[in-house]
């Protein structure tokens, strides 16, 4: 195993020392590029008071390529599919090496607060979101209660 790049060491240290409110990221002991992440659902959103588990992996050429992230908690959201994959531009084409774990996790938290059904990953969810937003939000709330509250 090659040595961990200084940048990853520093990012991890800072995530531990100055955690972002409502977000935690802890690296696995046996793989320091693999993080267990918790994100609290933003208030005023259907995900409020839910705690969502995610996994994050920093590939070999991070930070030149974006980190890989996936939800491990089931979530009803037009931009997140059944396997927890996230549709977010900064995780794909709009990635920049100046972004970091911290900023990406904040973006995901923001995505929970502002779903974007016009750029869907989960087509059925997006469809419902557009046709009957109230009902979709209600489902999201139920899923949050069912899966994201211990």
């Amino acid at each position, binding site marked *: 195993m090659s040595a961990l790049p200084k*940048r990853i060491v*520093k990012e991890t240290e800072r995530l531990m020392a100055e955690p972002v409110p409502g977000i935690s990221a802890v690296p696995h002991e046996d793989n320091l590029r693999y993080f267990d992440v918790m994100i609290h659902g933003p208030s005023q959103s259907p995900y409020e008071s839910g705690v969502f588990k995610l996994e994050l992996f920093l590939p070999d050429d991070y930070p*030149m390529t974006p980190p890989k992230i996936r939800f491990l908690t089931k979530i009803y959201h037009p931009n997140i599919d059944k396997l927890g994959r996230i549709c977010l531009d900064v995780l794909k084409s709009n990635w920049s090496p100046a972004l970091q774990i911290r900023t990406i996790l904040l973006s995901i938290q923001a995505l929970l607060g502002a779903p974007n059904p016009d750029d869907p990953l989960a087509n059925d969810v997006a469809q419902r979101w557009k046709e009957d937003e109230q009902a979709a939000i209600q489902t999201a709330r139920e899923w949050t209660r069912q899966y994201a509250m211990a």
Partner: protein
Amino acid sequence: MATPTSSSPRRPSSLQADAALQKPQVNLVDLRALEYVDSYDHNLMCAICHSPFVNPVRLECEHVFCQRCVNDAMSHQDRDSRVYSITCPSCRRRIENRAITPVPKILNHILDDLCVKCPLEYLGCPEVKARGDIQDHVNKYCAYAEVKCPSESCLLTVLRKDLDEQRCLHSVMKCEDCESSFMERDLEIHRSRHCEVGKASCPDCNAQVLLRDLVGHIECCPDATFPCNAAEYGCDFVARRETLNEHLKTCPLAKFVPFLRMQNERLEAHEAALKHLRHRNSILETSFSTIQETLSPSTNLIDSPSSSAAGSDTGPFDSTAHHLLCLHESLREEVNRVSAAVSEVDAKASMMVMNESLRIKEDLSHANAAIGNMRMQLHWLMSARLQNQQRVAMIRAQSSGDGLGSSTDAGGSNRSVELPVRRLSDSTRQDTKL
């Protein structure tokens, strides 16, 4: 201890050692992997590698990154897209011109001044250097850097600190206890830390302990003797650990140890302060005496009665110092008074000069006005005279010959044109006359 089993031909020569010094092995230090001693301004951190910039460069949008980081980012963007232009990692602005510009020198200087630990710290080098000097340190000075073995025939390396031995430390020796072979340079470490057979006897309990455990054993050996905690304050009790604990409960001196220690510390602090004060005092005294020397003639002249009075009143040292201070004070007052007077005089003088110059300016403008007036009058007179002369000449010409009609026509037209022209020329001529 150890016996050399095979010794390679060694020719200790200082020349060789010097050559090794001059031609160090070039290990490029990775500046990103260094440990920075102090916290640095976060603005000095490259947004890509999160270390202080290494060879920083500037993009069109004026964002700064390490050269290597920018190159990496560019090559990755090239791989992902077919567009030639790239975007700045920080602001996403499109960068059309890939020519990267250097950053101001001052930034490089600031970066070079950051203090880092020697990268060979893990081998024991305690040095902390400016980042700009660390490569030099490793290449030329670091005692823990690997350099070529001083022996000509040996191709291995030794730590620079071992160069002083002036001989090859790579001959294989046998550990006399466990029979395994080591190079001489590693033997000592083996014996003191790793050897599983070598034994030594504890100086206190005579037990046979593994050499590598000796230090640890001595710390907890039940037979080791220790002096009383208050040994430095006069208790000469020496005993084994358990007996000592008993003794410590009863020893009056030991109970006073913390207090005495505190007193000692305070005493030392006071002594240091006193020393400092003494030093200052001596400086002040010498300066006083020099002042006194320079002033003594004048003081004698000015107020010898007062000084003699003061001298008779108090002790000799007090009187001179006091007198000197008084003198100093009065001189200062005098100087103040004089400087105040000087500034007053200065203000007065400048006021006077100003008043005077105002009046002169007024006079000058009066005179100018008068001159202008006179000039106008002169004009008027001159032109009146000229007109008169012309009229006279014309009357004469008419009376002398009426035959030349054409000439009179020309003369008339001449006159009508001439009048303003004359005036103009007159005025210019007047200027030259004045």
